[in-house]
């Protein structure tokens, strides 16, 4: 298994978003800081070719990480098999695996309520800090666009 570059991430997401029934997508990976965080060069700019803006289904996504894991929230269990078939068909040079489980919060906890209050957006719980200024990307994908892919 390998960590993905931005171009591969884009190509993979292009295929994943065609699968109907995905509610939320979380890209996990190693942080790529904008500036050098430690050492004598602290504060210097950190140009990094893996930190890019990619376009998935007409939506711009700023990659802040080098993607290693993609967590998906799906509507029912049948979608997992579709994701599995897309992933195994996509990764030919190296392996991947698809795990089934609950990897993100499905509802706000008491701590979330205490921290963010009653008006926090429930779709953002467990994904990002609701107080973060940068908003998550919203990907709209219509049935017409999806019909070109073989799933």
């Amino acid at each position: 298994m390998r960590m993905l570059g931005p171009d591969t991430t884009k190509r993979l997401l292009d295929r994943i978003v065609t699968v109907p029934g995905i509610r939320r997508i979380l890209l996990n990976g190693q942080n790529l800081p904008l500036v050098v965080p430690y050492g004598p060069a602290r504060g210097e700019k950190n140009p990094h070719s893996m930190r890019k803006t990619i376009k998935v289904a007409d939506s711009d996504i700023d990659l802040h990480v080098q993607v290693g894991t993609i967590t998906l929230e799906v509507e029912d269990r049948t979608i997992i098999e579709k994701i599995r078939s897309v992933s195994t068909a996509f990764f030919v040079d190296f392996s991947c695996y698809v795990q089934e489980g609950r990897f993100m919060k499905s509802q706000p906890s008491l701590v979330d309520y205490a921290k963010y209050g009653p008006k926090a957006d429930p779709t953002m719980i467990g994904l990002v800090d609701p107080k973060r200024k940068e908003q998550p990307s919203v990907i709209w994908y219509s049935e017409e666009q999806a019909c070109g892919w073989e799933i």
Partner: protein
Amino acid sequence: MTRTPQFGPGTSVVAENRRRQMDPSHKLVTLRHVTDDDIVLLLGHRAIGARYPSVHPPIIEQQEPACPMRRLVKPTEGARNGDRVRYIQFADSMYNAPCQPYQRTYAEMYRFRAIDPGTLSGRQIVECRERDLEQYCRLLIETEMFDPTLVSLRGATVHGHSLRLCENGMMFDALQRCILTKDGVVQYVKDQIGIPLDRVVEVGKPLDSDWLKEHSTIFHSLVGTALREDKEYIEYLQRIHSLRTKYGFMPTEV
């Protein structure tokens, strides 16, 4: 009585590689060449062509006390000239890198003089006089102890040794100090602390994965040689563990 050092236990290829790197009588194979200026650039401690800053006058100009030990131990070139103490730090991937932090320290202690290594789980720093450091770096970069993709010079922000590799086989580096070009050559574009270089420094092509597996000094049950396959090493480790647990720092065999 002459004593033949064993350097380390084990019957596996990993153990043999470790012994070979530690044995100062064994000449390590040179796989790539870097110039003196390249090393100065990578280290980032002084400008190319600048004189070595000193922290004390040359020893010959100093009044040394009459000490038998000082007569016995000859100073290194850097110490003789009063150079500053400077460092180089390496991060080694767990995926069959040709060296690893503990091994690095053992090998350097056998091969180099006047060094102060610091060993951590994923990185190893070695400090010594600047002039000596540049000499030692040559061996550490040019020989089989280095691989451009799996070993990396990282003075700070070293994270990546235990992560899976990137798509192109490079070890993850948050500061992307080196890149793999389309020609398949690894180039350093930043020095070891992450400051962009005036010109790139080429450190050669990545080594073949089969070669790396044969020359690795890291046990890895998934991609390389598993520790459990080396019975002698296990026996040695268990003995050390047992003695250490029972007797602390003063082991006594009963």
